């Protein structure tokens, strides 16, 4: 799939660049595949273990990346505050799950644990959804017809404001959450261990993604969203309430950030006020990698980034190691954008790409 991606955009460029970039891209992908294959051959159990770690992380990134891509799809706005909405969702999760409200501890019976986790999930989704809608209402709505730079800057401003709210709320240290998810392995075969925590992340993420796709593809509201994304004025003429549709999109994006916040708090175990920024940046990268505005693209990009990070840090044979993780992620972003500016699954629009 990656090979195909590197070959495709070339029709639009000159013949010389066509061959050069194609050869370069194929060579690079071939090199990476070779590296992965050798590592798999040498230490198959570790390879699968690391794949599972990366896949879980990628699933978490996907939830955040979808928020970026949804908002971008409808407003062509990069909502920089999104990562911080996610961070506040994590803090909300710590508060709800921790001693303040539910006081969950490790080893709760399933009939206590699950209803409360689902309740916490709904609280976080509601909280982040409303927060995101509020941000849109205050910082973006008035600027909808302003030059592109204006909402971009207010987005950055909103990001800092939310960050400082997180700082004032929980202080500068990492906030630890209790280990409430069931410990132990789902399976352990030949040195490959798959923990319940990881499975739970997937068990929550997958239905959320399916519901999202259903919502956008099959419902009336989804149709309104797609229409608004295509042409706001035409949609308004057709009787679609554009403001409400945009608010709804922000609500959905925020709710996704809420899910991510809760899962992150439970899975990673610690949240800090500036974490939303870093993770938001990674998720944004994932969205661009997959083709911004494209829902499956965001998921694909996020999974790729999760896997790149894990493989880079975890594999033993000639891996650059954790000193280079960020450089690897953004290096790959640059390469893919150079070869395919619209992203892996992005559509080429007349005015862009």
């Amino acid at each position, binding site marked *: 799939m990656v090979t195909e991606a590197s070959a495709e955009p070339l029709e639009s460029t000159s013949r010389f660049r066509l061959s050069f970039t194609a050869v370069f891209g194929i060579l690079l992908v071939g090199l990476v595949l070779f590296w992965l294959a050798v590592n798999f051959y040498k230490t198959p159990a570790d390879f699968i273990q690391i794949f599972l770690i990366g896949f879980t992380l990628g699933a978490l990134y996907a939830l955040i990346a979808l928020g970026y891509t949804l908002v971008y799809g409808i407003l062509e706005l990069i909502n920089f505050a999104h990562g911080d909405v996610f961070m506040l969702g994590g803090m909300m999760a710590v508060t709800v799950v921790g001693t303040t409200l539910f006081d969950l501890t490790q080893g709760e019976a399933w009939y206590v644990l699950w209803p409360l986790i689902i309740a916490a999930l709904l609280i976080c989704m509601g909280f982040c959804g409303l927060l995101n809608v509020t941000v849109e209402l205050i910082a973006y709505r008035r600027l909808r017809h302003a030059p592109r730079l204006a909402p971009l800057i207010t987005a950055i401003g909103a990001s800092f404001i939310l960050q400082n709210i997180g700082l004032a709320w929980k202080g500068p240290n*990492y906030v630890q959450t209790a280990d409430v998810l069931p410990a132990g392995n789902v399976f352990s075969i030949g040195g490959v261990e798959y923990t319940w925590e990881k499975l739970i992340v997937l068990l929550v993420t997958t239905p959320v993604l399916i519901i999202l796709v259903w919502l956008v593809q099959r419902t009336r509201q989804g149709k309104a969203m797609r229409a608004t994304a295509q042409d706001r004025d035409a949609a308004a003429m057709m009787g679609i309430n554009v403001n409400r549709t945009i608010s709804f999109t922000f609500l959905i994006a925020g709710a996704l950030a809420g899910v991510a916040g809760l899962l*992150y708090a439970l899975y990673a175990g610690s949240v800090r006020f500036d974490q939303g920024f870093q993770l938001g940046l990674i998720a944004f990268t994932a969205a661009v990698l997959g083709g911004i505005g494209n829902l499956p693209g965001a998921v694909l990009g996020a999974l790729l980034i999760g896997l790149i990070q894990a493989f880079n840090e975890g594999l033993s044979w000639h891996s650059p190691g954790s000193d280079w993780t960020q450089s690897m992620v953004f290096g790959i972003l640059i390469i893919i954008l150079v070869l395919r500016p619209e992203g892996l699954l992005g559509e080429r629009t007349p005015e862009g790409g």
Partner: protein
Amino acid sequence: MRRGIIVGGIVAAAVLALIAAGCGGSSKSSSSTSGGGSGGGGNATALPASSCQDLYFEGSGKPDYIVPSDLPLQGSGRTQTIEMTNAIRFVLKQANFKAGKYTVGYQSCDDSTAQAGKWESSKCSANANAYAQNKSVIGVIGTFNSGCAEIEIPILNRAPDGPLGMVSPANTYVGLTHSGPGTAAGEPDKYYPNGERNYIRMVAADDFQGAADAQFMKDQGAKSVFILNDKEAYGLGVATDTKNSATKLGLKVAGFTAWDPKASSYEAVATKIKQSGADWIYLGGLICENGAKLVSDLKAGVPNAKLMAPDGFSDFTANGPAAAGMFITVAGVPPEKLTGKGADFIKAFGDQIGKKPNPYSAYAAQSMQVVLDAIEKSDGTRSSVTDNLLKTDVTDGILGTFSINENGDTTRNPVTVYQQVGSGKSGTGKTFKVEIPSASLVKAA
């Protein structure tokens, strides 16, 4: 158009990444105006409130001089540093706010920001400039972090009527005072631009700590050690020292790599360490660099490996539940092994704060005592105090008997290995062993 927006977004994101570097030392400006001091005569001008707390002085009127302390009072290590300021106050009050014929007041200044959750370079330089320009400041206690000391020492070195002397209770980076295998080119001379030394420290440098840590792991039966660092001057320095000593001792170094403080998970790193077959893991860095999460992922991913960390993890209340059983070294003597004046201090100060003092409190107290002694012997000028600091020779002090050599290093260099017991508010370090590494090993570090 769309591509333009994406590129613009990435550029904006990159700029933001530089601004909001969090625990990794960002560069926000902090306001700090200098008090235009007046020299002596019970007429000290307090340092600005933007960084420093109120002047602590219980004599009549104003003191002749001010001795500020420069510590990171926000972030993970807060409990520890606040206790250190109280130890300094304790010593000053015991001395009746006097050093010979001079009266001395104290101000606790903060070199950290809430945003960073640890020391921040712009705060360090603003603070140092404020000390240099306030003529009431006669000597400085600090810093806690070596990275901050690298910024402050040269500023104080060029202070008017100086150099202005600085006594650190905690800096362990080697290059601040002498060169060695792990130090950068030009160290330590680049910190002393006018050629005169103005800095001494109460703790052993990291070449001692690294040697002691490697020795300890070997003595405990380690065969192969995986060394991580947090990419900071201090963390990378102590990790390198430990690596050099371990190699010299014939320990296998299974890997040497950084941990990213911003990473969401260290599970993959743990898998790699497990694969390497290391039976010990060394964490050269600071707890505030996501150390608690790192420890918990390593504990889960490599359950059989033993963990060891240097004094960057010495706030036992911050290390998280997974750290129980982990070995942590602090350069210096453990509080309960202090004798004479030291034992008296630990008892009296412990009674005042209602718990066993943190290892660094005695070092903060000794620092204040050393400054007071130097002021007493001086003629009341900065340069004279600095001269006397470098001639420090303590007999039966809080830390026992020791002197300061021409580099500003102490002659008393034990390193204590603690074992973490409990976590959170009830977390403490149980003294495990006091290591005094051999001179040849220190040289190799």
